[in-house]
Every structure is written in C-alpha cells, then in structure tokens.
C-alpha cells in the first residue's frame, strides 16, 4: 500500500471541490499537451467545466447545441479525421440519450471519442430523478472496447482526464456535480485499470468507486471503533477492472462491500458480483441505489436518505458482518 491520502481527510473541514472542476483543469492541460484534442459540448459548457478549454482554445471548441445524438456522432467523424474529441453533457443525456450512437459509431467503430457524463448520481439534488443519472455505469460498461472511469475526487478527475486523452480508446468519464471531499493528493497514483488499497484491514473489504470511496473511508473509521477492521480499496476504473488487486483484497478479508452512487444492478456492484461469482465466490453487500430512481432534495439529505453516507454504510456493514461469516477459501 503506497497511496498518499489527503492528511485532513477525516477532518470536518476537509477540502471539497466538485469533481467536474478537476476535469476542466485536466482537459485544458491535455489540450496544451496535444493539439489533436478538441472539445464538443451540448449547451452545458460552464456547467460541465469545458469552459476552461474553450477559453484557452476557442478554435478547438465546438458548440453543438442541445443535440446529444449529433454530439457523439460528429465526434466519431472528427476522430476519423484524426482528432481526439472530448464530448460533454449531463450523464442523463449523454450516454442516457445517445447510447446507440455511442455503441455503433464509437465502440464498434473503435474511435477514441471521450464521453464525459457530468452530474451523475443522486447528489445532483434538487433537479430530481430525471437528471440524477444512475444507469450510466451499467450502460457503458457493457460496451466492448469502452473504458469506464469514475474518479474519486477532483484531483483524480484531472489525472483521469489526462490519461484518457492519451489512451487511444473510447472512454467514459463519470463526474459528479456537488462539491466532493478531496481524498487524494497530487502525488497519489492514478493509472487506467488500477485499483488502490487506501486503508488496510482484515475483517472485510470495501470497494468504492467515484464519490463513494470517501464515504467508505468514513465508514471504515467508524467501524474501527466497533472492532471491525475494514480494508478500503478505491476502484476508479470500473472497466477494465483491476482483478488482481480486488481479488487479493477479497481473498484476505473474506467479505465484500461495494459502493457506488448508481444502480447496483449491472453497475459497479454488478461488475464485482460477476467477478466474484466467476473467480472467488464471496459474500457481498452492494451499497447504492437498489432498483429505484432518486428524487428532489438537498444532496446531503438524499445521500443520507438512500443510506449512502459513511455513518449509514457503517451501520449496514455492522449488520452484514454480524450476519455473515468470513468466507475463506483454499486458494
């Protein structure tokens, strides 16, 4: 384990920043490094933080209007012409609205288009269920050739943006709207396809993606007071999964929890369930949205209501641990 965590991570006044802000910085930096990078937005340029890139490279920014099908298919054509297009909208619209176009003209067509889905998860808040995208992880991870990343904070979002700019593959980056606690540092590693052990433990393995890794860290700290030593693994890349790191942690702990701000069905929890049932069957608790939509409310209020906050997760894990023996296999 060699992952520098934010030293003030567990403080009440931990620094917070919207994950999308990191994307904005990363895209601008990627644009400085590579002239082939172009940015397309469907009428949400400030909101998705493409505005930094637009200001720096107005000639490489394309305003697409409210037309998400055209957004990704024009991007496919730009990629054919040798460009590296980043497309942004709210995740509910892209990939929500234009999934088939992404499937045919980007994934099957193997074009290195980057799909940035901002405002994912219930923490979108007052806008309500229509705008709280919960199915994007499931939609994107089933596509062959597609890379799927849900960064844990704005620092990691910046690194992930730079990484997908150069990976030559169709890629999906999932961003959250709200201010999110900073869990990492500039020195923390990020590599596509890698998971990171943030905290070691031997009683249970907590796998988090996106904003939920922070909540798992909080939960792990609470659990410690109840003599449950949880290992926390951050899994920013949902596809391809870092099977080696994940399975090693599962093998050690014999009980697993996944957490995501998305549908657990076919989402990150679904991906882990698939992995475990094929390679290392282990009792699993999936934290996330359980086959239901969100609703309007303040972000913190909703996170609590849906039991996605560290305290609720810790309670649910205590129950899970008390009911579930560790499952150690002879591997």
């Amino acid at each position, binding site marked *: 384990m060699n992952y520098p965590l934010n030293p003030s991570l567990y403080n009440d006044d931990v620094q917070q920043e919207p994950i999308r802000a990191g994307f904005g910085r990363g895209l601008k930096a990627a644009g400085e490094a590579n002239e082939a990078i172009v940015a397309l937005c469907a009428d949400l340029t400030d909101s998705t933080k493409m505005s930094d890139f637009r200001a720096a490279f107005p000639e490489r920014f394309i305003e697409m*209007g409210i*037309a998400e*099908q*055209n957004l990704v298919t*024009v991007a*496919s054509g730009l990629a*054919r*012409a*040798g460009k590296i297009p980043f497309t942004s909208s709210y995740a509910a619209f892209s990939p929500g609205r234009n999934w088939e176009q992404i499937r045919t003209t980007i994934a099957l*067509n193997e074009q290195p288009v980057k799909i940035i889905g901002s405002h994912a998860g219930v923490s979108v808040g007052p806008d309500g269920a229509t705008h709280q995208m919960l199915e994007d992880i499931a939609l994107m991870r089933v596509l062959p050739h597609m890379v799927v990343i849900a960064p844990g904070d704005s620092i990691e979002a910046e690194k992930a943006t730079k990484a997908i700019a150069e990976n030559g593959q169709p890629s999906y980056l999932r961003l959250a709207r709200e201010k999110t606690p900073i869990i990492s540092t500039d020195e923390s590693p990020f590599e596509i396809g890698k998971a990171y052990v943030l905290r070691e433990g031997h009683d249970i393995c907590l796998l988090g993606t996106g904003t939920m890794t922070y909540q798992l860290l909080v939960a792990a700290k609470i659990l410690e007071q109840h003599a449950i030593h949880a290992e926390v693994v951050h899994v920013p890349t949902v596809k391809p999964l870092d099977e080696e790191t994940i399975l090693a942690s599962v093998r050690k702990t014999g009980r697993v929890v996944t957490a995501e701000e998305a549908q657990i069905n076919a989402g990150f929890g679904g991906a882990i369930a698939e992995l475990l049932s094929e390679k290392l069957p282990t009792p699993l608790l999936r934290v996330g949205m359980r086959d239901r939509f969100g609703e309007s409310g303040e972000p913190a209020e909703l996170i609590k209501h849906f039991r996605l906050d560290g305290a609720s997760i810790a309670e649910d894990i205590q129950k899970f641990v008390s009911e579930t023996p560790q499952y150690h296999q002879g591997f």
Partner: protein
Amino acid sequence: MGGQLTLKQLEQKANQVRQDIISMLVAAGSGHSAGPLDLADIMTALYFDIMNIDPSKPEWPERDVFFLSNGHCVPVQYAVMAERGYFPVEELQTLRKFGSRLQGHPERTKLPGLENTSGPLGSGLSQAAGYAYSLQYLEKVRHRWVYAVTGDGELNEGNIWEAAMFAGKYKLSQLIVFIDRNNIQIDGSTEDVMPLEDLHAKWESFGWHVQEIDGHNIESVIDAASMARAISNKPSVIIAHTIAGKGVDFMEYDYHWHGNPPGTIEPEGAPPKSDQARVALNKLRTLDGKITSGDIH
C-alpha cells in the same frame, strides 16, 4: 477527380455493379435489394469519377472520403469498391458470410477503405459532418471533400436533422450529401409511413444548398457534385430521385424488395422465386430492364 472513364463506360460499369449486387445477394441469401440497385449509378459516379481516391492507398491523407449513412445499402458500396480495385471482385461472394470482411452492415475496422460503421440509421451524416468540420476549421484544408449518401426513409430519424442544423450553422461547404429519394421504406411508401415533403424546402430552411436530379443519369450526378463543390458557403444536399430496384423490372417501385434478395419472396408480378436471380441478371445483361445506359458490350 477520377475522370478516367467515358460516360458510356461509367454506365456500363454501373450495369456491372448491378449484376454484382444481384449475384452477391443471391449468394448471401439475405440482404437488401432495392436501395443498392437504385444507388448503382450514384455510387459508380462517386467512386469512378467524382472522388479523388486511390484504391491501393485507402488511408491516403489527400483522399476524398465517403460516408454511407444508410448502412443496409452497403452491397452497392462493396460492389463499386471491388470494381474500383479495393479488393478482388470474387470476394463479393463472401457478403454476410462467417469470417467475411464484408459484414451485413459496414464495419470500418473490418475492411480498409470504409470510413465509418453504420447500420442503425441517422448517424452517418453526423460522422460525415464531423469529418467536414475537421477539414474546414481544424485542418483548414480546402481541396478535400466529404461525400455522404443517406436514404430517404432514414430522414425519419431525429439525428439527421440535428446534423442538418449543425452543418448549416457551420456552413460546412466541403460536405456533399446525396439523398436516395426512392420513395420506399420497409413498411411502404415514404409518404404513407411518415411524409417527408417538402424535402427541398426543409433542407433549404436548414441552410443547405439544394439540388434535385435524376439519380440514374450519371452525367447529372457528376454535374451536381461539381456544382456542389462550387458552393463555398453552405453544405450541399443533392436530392437524387431514383427508382427503387432500378434495373430489374420486377423489383422496380416495389417496397417489398427493400429488405429481401432475389429468391426469397414472390410479390405479385415477380417471376417464381427459383427463377428470379436468373431473370434479374438476364435483364441486366441484355438491357431487358429499364436502364437507359446505351449499348452494353
């Protein structure tokens, strides 16, 4: 441009392309007949005259590019590409078969020379527009052109009109689109299924330069493309009026042949299934069909 063949030779080539289409569809046992047949003249004009291409160098950076938006019509593209020398004509017989580079709908990664992957309708035009945007605004290269073909039934798709607005806004003058106006789609006549008219006015109102031509007159096709290239401040659409199934009289105008090859259905007036391929090829070879392409030798 190509310009290697005389008009008569181009017409003969289009006839050969139609024969290729019939024989490859029969070998495949499935696929679309009407659209590929009626696009034979436009596609022959594009690949043998209009476009600046080199079949031996499909990724040649100076090439003109072609995007097929209505991917189900790909048999005609495969046929013109084979005739033009992108791959052996014999390979046409592998259409839709396991292991073939000639997938039922075109896949760029399978066959060199294809610029896009299409099938689900409405997205090829956007891909062409993206390419044209790159040439005009990012590369600032003015001597290359982006050609696209769409179906008319395909214009039901909302994605098409998003692309139309986009190309109009950015005045993508290197984008030249042919609409195969054959008036049929799977469920019947386009005007019965979902009326498209006034098509001319629709495209004009989106900021496009609009021409209407006889899509079976190769000279008109070449002239219209030339006119479109001369329009420097708008994208161009060429509404090509065509006859579905053109060249095989028992298929002409009949929407039943949209998605079926010879030998699979027997609509009123058609020969018995077992004889359809022979009759169709015979008509093309002897000009018993309605092609006005002059003598075939």
